[in-house]
């Protein structure tokens, strides 16, 4: 019996290690390819380690992608901060200050996070064009803040629903109003909620492509996803360069995930509405 259990256990670990290997293979491939010089990249040795390490790919990739990485940063930081603040306020209203009709407003808001953005893309393009926000970072910030409202509101609403209503009532007893309760009671306990939302929005906006490619292509304000797809989609590429570019594009979100993975998972599960 005990040996049978032991064999069982061994098989479980074997399977887990095998699956882990499958999940890690792409990373291995990216790293070894990015560290090969173009003339070392040969099909019959694609899986082999580089014979001499060629770090110049990263220098080249940095030169090619620094402007778009910087664009992404200029986009992600304000958009994330603004949508987190907006979401927090909305979540506070929808959990502690429910008004008549709130139960209709909330699902109508939520629907906005599921729509295919193609269905609003043409009017959005026209609108941004007519107000002078087409092709620049502020326009893209606006877009991400607006279409981030549903998910940020959802996460904060679920978070604040857990906070006992007695706290709000006690605050009201002490004479605090809407803002007083928010500033002195809700905001100070909101840190975990903010971490979840900030990580979520940071990852989403950094990784977003459809809005970016529609609204910034060829303007010099392209975020990293557009720049990387332009390079990788081109013909006759030296593959060390897109691979090094992929590393640069992936690092920010990957680091956030490694450091704050627990909160990342929470945001992930919140996306399935139930929270």
């Amino acid at each position, binding site marked *: 019996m005990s040996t049978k259990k032991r064999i069982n256990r061994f098989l*479980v670990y074997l*399977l*887990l290690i095998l699956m882990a290997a499958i*999940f890690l*293979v*792409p990373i291995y*491939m990216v790293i070894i390819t990015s560290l090969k010089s173009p003339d070392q990249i040969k099909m019959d040795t*694609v*899986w082999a380690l580089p014979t001499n390490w060629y770090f110049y790919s990263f220098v080249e990739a940095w030169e090619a992608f620094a402007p778009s990485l910087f664009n992404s940063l200029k986009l992600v930081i304000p958009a994330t901060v603004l949508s987190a603040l*907006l979401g927090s*306020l*909305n979540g506070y*209203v929808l959990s502690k200050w429910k*008004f008549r009709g709130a*139960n209709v*407003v909330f*699902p109508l*808001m*939520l*629907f*906005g996070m*599921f729509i*295919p953005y*193609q*269905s*609003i*893309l*043409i*009017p959005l393009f*026209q609108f941004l*064009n007519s107000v002078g926000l087409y092709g620049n970072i502020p326009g893209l910030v606006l877009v991400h803040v607006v279409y981030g*409202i*549903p998910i940020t509101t959802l996460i904060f609403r679920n978070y604040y629903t857990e906070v006992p209503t007695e706290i709000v009532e006690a605050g*009201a007893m002490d004479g605090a*109003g*809407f803002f007083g309760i928010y500033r002195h009671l809700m905001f100070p306990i909101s840190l975990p909620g903010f971490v979840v939302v900030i990580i979520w929005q940071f*990852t989403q906006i950094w*990784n977003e*492509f*459809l809005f970016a*490619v*529609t609204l910034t292509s060829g303007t010099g304000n392209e975020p990293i*996803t557009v720049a*990387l*797809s332009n390079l990788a*989609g081109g013909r006759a590429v030296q593959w060390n360069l*897109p*691979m090094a570019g*992929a590393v640069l*594009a*992936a690092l920010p*979100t990957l680091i956030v*995930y*490694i450091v704050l993975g627990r909160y*990342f998972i929470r945001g*992930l599960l919140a*996306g*399935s*509405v*139930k929270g």
Partner: protein
Amino acid sequence: MTRSFMRRDRIIAFLMLLPSMILIAIFVYGFIGRTAYSSLTNWKGVMVDPVMDFIGLENYRQLFTGLINIRFRQSLVNTFFFTILFVVLCLVTGLTLAMLLDRNIRAKGIFRNIFLYPMSLSFIVTGTVWRWLLNPVGGINRLPELIGLEPLTIKWVTDRAQILKFNWQFFPRTVGILLLVLMLFLVYRSLRKNKKIGAFISGIVGLLAALWLVTGGDQALTLAYPEPHGFNLALIGVILAASWQMSGYTMAMYLAGMTGIAEELREAAYIDGATEFQMYRYIIFPMLAPITLSAMIVLGHISLKIFDLIWVMAGQDNATTDVPGTLMFTTAFRGNQFALGAAIAMVMLILVALVIVPYLVNTLGSEQEL
């Protein structure tokens, strides 16, 4: 603490939500309305000060029956197969991983992180990497060589082969009947659970489907000649990449669900002499059913919207791997056929709404009963 004071704060609260409500009203519903209207016109050519004549449902008729719009129909077929394979692969992989990890595994956290990290990447990064992995003369095809076998010769995303072919003429009627059956089932289910709103909505949709079939509405969308469509094998590579990225998500959902199943319940099952198989079969799987449904809906709607991954892996204008998402973009923003692009976008929206609206009504509806 006077009542008027509270009332003033209630007004403030409403006013604080108002900007978001207005933004959503304009940017989501207003813009959808504009797209819907554009899809009923002949708008093409210029973006600024366009000429837009109302032509009714002509664009939709063109998409479903026009000779040159065969690509749109294949894009729907592609999405269909993509969705089924992608969802099944993610569910199976995710459940397997969760079951493996749910056994007091040492280094559980490390394994979980390995399975989840692809979720933090963009589809663009995933696509770039997988395009290289799926190079027909390199990458994965060369893996068998490492253990002394012949390399594979799979063409992956450049494959032109098509299997499971069927005649598109059957499509409109089949969809109508399937929709009707599905809605009848949903009405039955909602009534049994005493959810009147759900039953009402499903009933209306079912009634519309029945009306459409009875009045011969499906004939209007039926091609005059047979047109074969099928599963393009070029999609398999993209499905693999998408599943590699999203399986961790299903795993996380299942793990969250399994942790929720109380330890006492399992111990009780063990004490009652249940084998491990029985425990999964009779205790754990039934409790995971709602999670499976949520995962199917979330993954399904992602798959209906898929865009970036196809774009990088197979190119933005590749007929074999077209999906409505990429086709809408090229039609509207490359071909300047804005009305036709808007019509494709509306078809996408309807497909997503069919999946999401019942789900939202269901989850939020049951929440309010609490």
